């Protein structure tokens, strides 16, 4: 079943059109990779799906589980199961990571009409997940992402993903800034979340990540459109020949 349907999406930022009619369908259980040159609109797409303000959708639609996503506030989208692992996670001084995680998880559960986690249950869950991601407990006492290294910030995004158990995970360049070991740990974390009910959209510049998180479909984005889609071999092709051949198509 289609989980995410982006149809002929046109998006402007500050009077300039960035996405020029983008179409993308992601089914439950699938892993999609999106590759494309700098500035082609990959992060813009992920932000519009998550509901970041400042983007004007001038045409097209986004359906999530058949519902109009663009009508929902960002927190409603999160509660419905949309999760974006940010390319550049922000630092939030003064908000302890643990407090943030618990507040966010319980806000989502409340919005879905589920009961809040008790403190011991929550702590147990965080401990399990952070252990598997090699995140030390004392990191969780610090402000959200404050003083985290680039790699630690990315792992913190995967931690949240594992904790919130979203049905759609969008990973925007989760591999940037990760060393080889950290990449494997993070990718293992992502793979552990693969399930027949959950879909992933992996935005990356590098084929290497796709060796760890093997996609079902690879899309090439250029100048605000999906210009080619194919199997995982498409990523290898791109690695060998670059984007030049697609620039014209766009």
């Amino acid at each position, binding site marked *: 079943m289609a989980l995410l349907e982006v149809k002929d999406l046109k998006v402007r930022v500050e009077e300039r059109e960035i996405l020029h009619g983008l179409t993308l369908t992601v089914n439950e259980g699938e892993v999609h990779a999106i590759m494309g040159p700098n500035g082609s609109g990959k992060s813009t797409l992920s932000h519009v799906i998550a509901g970041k303000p400042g983007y004007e959708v001038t045409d097209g639609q986004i359906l999530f589980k058949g519902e109009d996503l663009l009508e929902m506030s*960002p*927190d409603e989208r*999160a509660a419905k199961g949309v999760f974006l692992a940010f390319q550049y996670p922000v630092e*939030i001084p003064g*908000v302890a990571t643990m407090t943030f995680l618990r507040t*966010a998880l319980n*806000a989502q559960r409340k919005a879905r009409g589920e009961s809040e986690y008790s403190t011991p249950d929550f702590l147990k869950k965080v401990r399990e997940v952070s252990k598997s991601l090699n995140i030390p407990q004392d990191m969780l006492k610090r*402000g959200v992402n404050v003083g985290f290294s680039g790699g630690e910030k990315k792992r913190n995004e995967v931690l949240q993903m594992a904790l919130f158990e979203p049905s759609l995970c969008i990973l925007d360049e989760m591999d940037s800034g990760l060393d080889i070991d950290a990449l494997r740990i993070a990718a293992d974390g992502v793979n552990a979340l693969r399930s027949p009910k959950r879909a992933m959209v992996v935005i990356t510049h590098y084929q290497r990540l796709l060796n760890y998180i093997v996609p079902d479909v690879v899309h090439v984005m250029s100048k605000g459109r999906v210009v080619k889609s194919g199997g995982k071999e498409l990523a290898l092709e791109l690695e060998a020949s670059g984007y030049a051949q697609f620039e014209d198509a766009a």
Partner: protein
Amino acid sequence: MNVAVAKTGNGRAVSDLFASAEGRLPGSPDVIAVRREAFETYERLGLPHRRIEEWKYTDLRALVGEVLPLAAAPDAAALKRAAEAVKAHAIEGARKLVLVDGVFAADLSDTKALTAEVGFRTLREALEKDSGLLKTSSTDAVIALNAAMATDGVVLSIANGAQLSAPIQILHIATAASASSFTRSRVAIGKGARATIVESFVSAGAKAYQVNDAVIVTVGDGADVAHIRLMDDAADAANVSSHFVTVGANVKFNFFNMTTGAAVSRLQGFITLAGEGSELSANGVNLLQKTEHGDTTLVVDHAVPNCVSREIFRAVIDDRAHSVFQGRIIVRPDAQKTDGKMMTRALLLSDEAEADNKPELEIFADDVSCGHGATAGALDDSLLFYLKARGLPEKQAQALLIQAFVGEAIEQIADDVLREHVIGIAERWLERRS
């Protein structure tokens, strides 16, 4: 009550305030003479207004207009309501001293639980002998008015070396609507003593009342003191409070003020570092909404060498509220090696919110390290979006960021129970946001 409303700037009407209250004002004939003189000073000056430099941002004539008649002494029904408020606002484990509408309420207080190291009298009792309690070096009109009208207060003297494990909480409870209460307290802390004093201002259902409080604190050498003031008066009340603090040598003095209530308020603190080697940490938070006006004015006077002062002030201003912070650091000519810093930040939650910040350094010594910094701005949209993208609704996301913003000041409170109590008051303010 059949008392004429006092008008400012109009001598005849103002006199009624004092004349009609005189029968209720405690004190020996000497004390009454001091009161009369103070009242004459007040009459001459009237309420402070914008042309008085220290009151430039808080024009009491415009904001308050008139001083309301003295509140009647609380009756049984008022005391019953006050008892409920005491229950709701008491700090766990604290020794409570309760003033209801400006009158000490023995039955609601824990005077019997005070240890022998804590000398206690009411102001009323103390004034039978001592008129000095009504005198300060200030020439401020509201302080003169306080000296003239103070009906009661607590007079505490903490013995040298006393190590008080329980905080002393002075609760000011308002039950009378459209009336004024005037209180004055003195806290003398002995050498080497350790004590925590908390002042809480709350309403037991009273509306549109006025509070004028003064506190005189002296801290002996080597003492370690936390002084916390929590002003959460009714949304249409006015509260003007003045602190005079004199700190001895090698003292650790940790002051914290939080304003979460009153339509018009001002805390003016005058802290003199009079002994070498002392460390002052003076911090404050203003949480203001609707059309509230909250003024925190701190004057830190480094009178001697080798003291450190640190001030962290945070204001969160919503709707059409107005926050004022005036921070003056004075370094006297021989106060060498003074280290004084002040950092203020304002968070504006609405386009119509207003923050005035007036830092002043008056430095007369040459070998010092002093500075101040200030910022003002809105909530960071990228942080808000991050939180919302993780499922927090707008208001909750804002609340988390606001708590983080004021956290740096609140964190200066060392005691866990007190800090949680303060955070609880801040959380209730957040819940009141429309």
